[in-house]
């Protein structure tokens, strides 16, 4: 027992000594300089994975460029799972002085809401989330972008590539089948691949598409296998909505053209990369942080568009078909001035018939019941005003086959 006491005493005094020096150091860290104009913003970012994930890298780049342009101090926490760790991470960011906290993954949302309830004076924002418009918290925001428009433009690139292959005699018009590696079968992914398909179909009417799911946002092996499976099934062009380099690498190895997502994969796939659509998050971060700085409120649901600079395409690679750049510019202008709608109900059918009414599950509820008719003026109004920012297009249209 005596020995026990000794150990206890040593451990306790050690812990106290550690505590003391920790406090001392921390105090000096949190000293902030008062700013002359408006509130001093300090931003905290919570990422599901790290820079190895194309999805998270895209957020990290956006965060860095927005903060550095505005001269804002920031902290990035990577590899934060979609669990209680996310709430702890948010709390630690607030402790570190952040008054703007942003999380990048769908499953982070519940924990960010808990943190928002805990710290009403801090503004929380969350990408791809669905609950801000029903939660009724003034300091919790959802943000997304009309990336379906970007994917539509990328789809045009794919369709023109297919046309080139048909003209060269590599495939017949009936063999124009694309493959798509998706993460999960929910609206964000369905909306993405459908817009990509419709973009391709707008220039290559005979196109069909197979979709396979990996059940993970980041699983390099599964994404690679998924792409290989599609290629073996006769898909002559691949795109993906999952975050590793699995699918692009598989395409490069097989010599199959690839339309990427989240950013250019040209350096890793010089022979097969066509183009990539991505969301540039810097405009949203700038918008939100400027509002906080000026003491203003900002949108509960924010949708970045082509016009805000949120939806972009990377530079076209040398592998694309002739005339692609012009076709994209034309479509882009039409999308921007409202004469073209990606989900125009005249361009697709479900179960053989056109869609005239669809109750989408906009307000999340446990039963996933449809609650809003989202067919407006002859098109499916995705991520539209009055609904919410995160996608809710989950129709399975004709021409696309889900494997499994």
């Amino acid at each position, binding site marked *: 027992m005596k*020995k*026990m006491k*000794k*150990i206890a005493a040593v*451990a306790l005094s050690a*812990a106290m000594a*550690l*505590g003391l*020096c*920790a406090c001392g*150091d*921390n105090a000096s860290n949190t000293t902030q300089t008062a700013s002359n104009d408006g509130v001093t913003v300090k931003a905290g970012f919570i990422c599901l994975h*790290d*820079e190895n994930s194309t999805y998270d890298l895209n957020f990290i780049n956006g965060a860095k460029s927005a903060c550095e342009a505005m001269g804002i101090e920031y*902290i*990035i*926490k*990577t*590899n934060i*799972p*979609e*669990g*209680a760790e996310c709430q*702890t991470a948010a*709390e*630690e960011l607030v*402790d570190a002085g952040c008054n703007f906290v942003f999380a990048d993954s*769908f*499953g982070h*949302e*519940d*924990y960010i*809401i*808990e943190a928002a309830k805990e710290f009403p004076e801090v503004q929380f924002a969350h990408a791809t989330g669905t609950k801000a418009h029903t939660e009724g918290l003034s300091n919790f925001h959802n943000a997304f972008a009309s990336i379906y428009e970007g994917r539509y433009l990328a789809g045009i690139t794919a369709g023109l590539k297919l046309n080139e292959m048909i003209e060269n005699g590599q495939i017949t018009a009936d063999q124009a089948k694309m493959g798509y590696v998706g*993460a*999960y079968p*929910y609206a964000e992914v369905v909306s993405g691949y459908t817009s990509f398909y419709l973009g391709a179909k707008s220039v290559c009417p005979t196109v069909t598409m197979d979709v396979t799911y990996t*059940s993970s*946002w980041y699983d390099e092996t599964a994404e690679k296998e998924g792409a290989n499976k599609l290629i073996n099934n006769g898909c002559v062009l691949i795109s993906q909505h999952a975050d590793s380099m699995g699918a692009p690498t598989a395409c490069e190895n097989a010599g199959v053209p690839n339309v990427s997502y989240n950013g250019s994969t040209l350096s890793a796939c010089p022979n097969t990369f066509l183009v990539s659509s991505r969301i540039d998050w810097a405009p949203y971060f700038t918008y939100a942080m400027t509002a906080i700085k000026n003491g203003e409120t900002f949108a509960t649901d924010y949708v970045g568009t082509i016009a805000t600079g949120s939806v972009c395409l990377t530079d076209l690679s040398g592998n694309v078909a002739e005339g692609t750049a012009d076709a994209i510019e034309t479509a882009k202008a039409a999308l921007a001035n409202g004469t073209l709608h990606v989900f125009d109900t005249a361009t697709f059918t479900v179960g053989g018939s056109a869609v005239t009414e669809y109750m989408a*599950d906009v307000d999340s509820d446990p039963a*996933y019941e449809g609650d809003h008719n989202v067919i407006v003026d002859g098109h499916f109004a995705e991520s539209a005003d009055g609904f919410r920012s995160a996608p809710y297009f989950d129709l399975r249209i004709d021409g696309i086959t889900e494997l499994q």
Partner: protein
Amino acid sequence: MNKFRIHIAKRDTMPVAAAWAIRIGAIVLALLLGSLLTLVLTGKNPLSVLLTIVQGAFGTERKIWTTLRDTSVLLMFGLAVAPAFKMRFWNIGAEGQVLMSGLGTAVVMFFLGGKINDGLLIILMLVAAIVCGMLWAFIPAVIKAKWNTNETLSTLMLNYIAAQIVSMFIAWAVPSGSMKMGIINQDTNAGWLPALFGNKHILIIIMALLITAFVFVYIKYGKGGYELTVVGESVKTARYVGIKVEWVIIRTMLISGAICGIIGFLQVAGVEHTISPNTAGGLGFTAVLVAWMAKLNPIVMIFTSMLIVVMSNGAGDVASSLGLNASFSDILTGIILFFLIGCEFFINYKICFSAKNDKISSDVTDSKESESSGGVEENEGGKQS
């Protein structure tokens, strides 16, 4: 025979203070190596790594509470496996037992939340958790007792089965989305454990201390503790003195399962308010380390669990504050654990450098003597680790 020879011999039981001096030395060496690595990779002051580890664990009030809570949770895992280890029953299934209890808690919370009185709901959740945990511990215990199956394999496999059952439940309960349960009853907070004294961590810390006291008393003074110790020493002896070995195995595992049940309940109802295949977070395996480093002594386990938590929580901050990839924290934690486990070798064995053969033979006899005369209980961990 003038050749210089290295020879390894088992030590006499080392004084506790000396053993801890070696362990602390190992931590210092691990930190030095970690600092050196940081210096080489980043060119930053090695001292900043040490300071960051301390800050990562104790830097703010919240971090101190988080460290205490994480320590409590890990400690309870260690306490859950310790009685079985004392019995030489290699239970590495705490992971699965906690997962099943967490699932029991979550299922009750999910289906009955808001439909019945909240107090009753919490009691039902606790009962469900303990029943599930005990069931998941009972299976390997009973097949070991009846058919002498290898419990290392059966407990390990049951972990994976538990994880799959949890995944199945989530896929069924939340058909849309990315296979995440989300926070259960987020709007009503039904079935959430209340924050004692306005602090959501205190209940867990108190429970950990209560369980520590229980396990300590049970092993040291209880009849059950005596019986499981005898079974651990020699099954034949136990049978000879009339101990029902099968029953002792089952009873001890039921206690492990019940403790795991409480952990699963606290994790789901008190901390996470959700369930996922990662709810146990691999702590069921870290618990083996906690228990062995403490030589299965519940009181010492308080310190071993805290040591591991401080090191890993601290290392987590090193990566973010130095702007390194989070994998770097894993490297640092790995170095620390390697040194901690490795140093047990030097506590249990000594290395003799000798030039003559007769010296070696005397060492061997020495060590044999010490093995036979050394305190059985204190030597236990050493023999196994």
